[in-house]
């Protein structure tokens, strides 16, 4: 559904490319500045997770439309080590990299819908959507 575009995350600067693309799409969809900042930050977190833990992956953007509203769907996929305990990474303050541990739970709060699938040794797929209000 809708147009799709993606950014491959391979080096740190690709994070900037990903969030730039996300911001542009969000702006065109009519999101306000606060929501644009939320979406951009969420993309930044997801892309950084790919860069930090998987090394390589993809961030895809999709414009989704339901009966009443439009939205942006962000898909972050990688073939990295995967996540052993999903409930643990969704806890505030849990980190394996010495960071703040606010990334994934933060993304969940920044966006409207959030879904995470992960298999150890195979990779992780995070789907998250924000609707225009």
């Amino acid at each position: 559904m809708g147009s799709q575009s993606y950014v491959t995350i391979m080096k740190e600067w690709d994070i900037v490319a990903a969030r730039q693309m996300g911001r542009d799409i969000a702006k065109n969809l009519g999101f306000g500045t606060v929501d644009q900042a939320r979406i951009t930050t969420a993309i930044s977190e997801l892309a950084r997770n790919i860069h930090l833990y998987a090394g390589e992956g993809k961030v895809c953007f999709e414009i989704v439309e339901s009966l009443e509203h439009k939205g942006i769907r962000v898909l972050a996929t990688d073939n990295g080590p995967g996540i052993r305990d999903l409930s643990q990474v969704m806890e505030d303050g849990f980190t394996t990299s010495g960071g703040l541990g606010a990334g994934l739970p933060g993304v969940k709060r920044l966006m409207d819908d959030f879904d995470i699938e992960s298999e150890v040794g195979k990779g992780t797929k995070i789907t998250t959507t924000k609707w225009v209000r």
Partner: protein
Amino acid sequence: MNRDLRDIAIDNSDRIIQEWSKEINRLKSANYTADISKELFENNNDEFVNVILNSIKGNGSTKIVKDFSDRIIKLGWPLSYIIDGLLVFRKVTTNTILTEIEQADSEYISEVINNVDVWVEPIIRQLVNEYSVSWEHVVSLQRIALQELSAPLIPVMDNITIMPLIGTIDTERAKFIMENLLEGVMQHNAEVVLIDITGVPVVDTMVAHHLFQATEAVRLLGAKCILVGIRPEIAQTIVNLGINFSKLPTKSTLKKGFMLALEITNKSIVEMQDKSQNIDQLLGLDKGSERIHANSDLKTT
């Protein structure tokens, strides 16, 4: 055999040039050089095709290719033009040689193709190399320019220093900020450092984390950090992310932060009363025409 093919190509160079120009002109309209004048394009084409032919004549001499590539890079011709030009040349030359010689069994054809490849390939390789070297050079220069901008530290008063941050913060830059901050605190004997993030587009957990580390390090040196320039949308995302900024004093604008810094360092700005003085005089220009009142002055209390 090899010698023969080369002679055939050189003997028929006029025809090759003609065919080549036709092809290139056809590509032009669809492509890159829409804004380049026709004359310039044709001149350049003539030169280009001659460079290729001379290089083949000179048995792969690189000097002439290098001179040409230097100039063409300086003028900013797109790489796609060069690549297209060489690929078209290969096609046209192969065709020309094959039509010259009636003998056309598959072995012979493949030999012709191989030979033309051997002529063209080193030129392609060299030109692509030259281009990528010039790009790398530009990128490295920009990197240096960026680094110069990345973490400036401005001592505005005794004991008060400002670090305005503009643009994306990545790991490398975060390190740089930390180093400059600590060095500056020592060097300027700063008591308060204002970090202004008005120009930082995204504050995610990584940026916040680096800011925390930097301020903690500054605190260890006995100075205080105040984070200023927090835009409303950034404030909302920080709250959503669930980052706790309570350990770090924050202000919405640099002005408010500066006021706080003055308070901390026991200073205040006092407006001087009834002291009409010419601005030009104050600035030492002394060509006074207008009289301007109410100049503020800084005073230590």
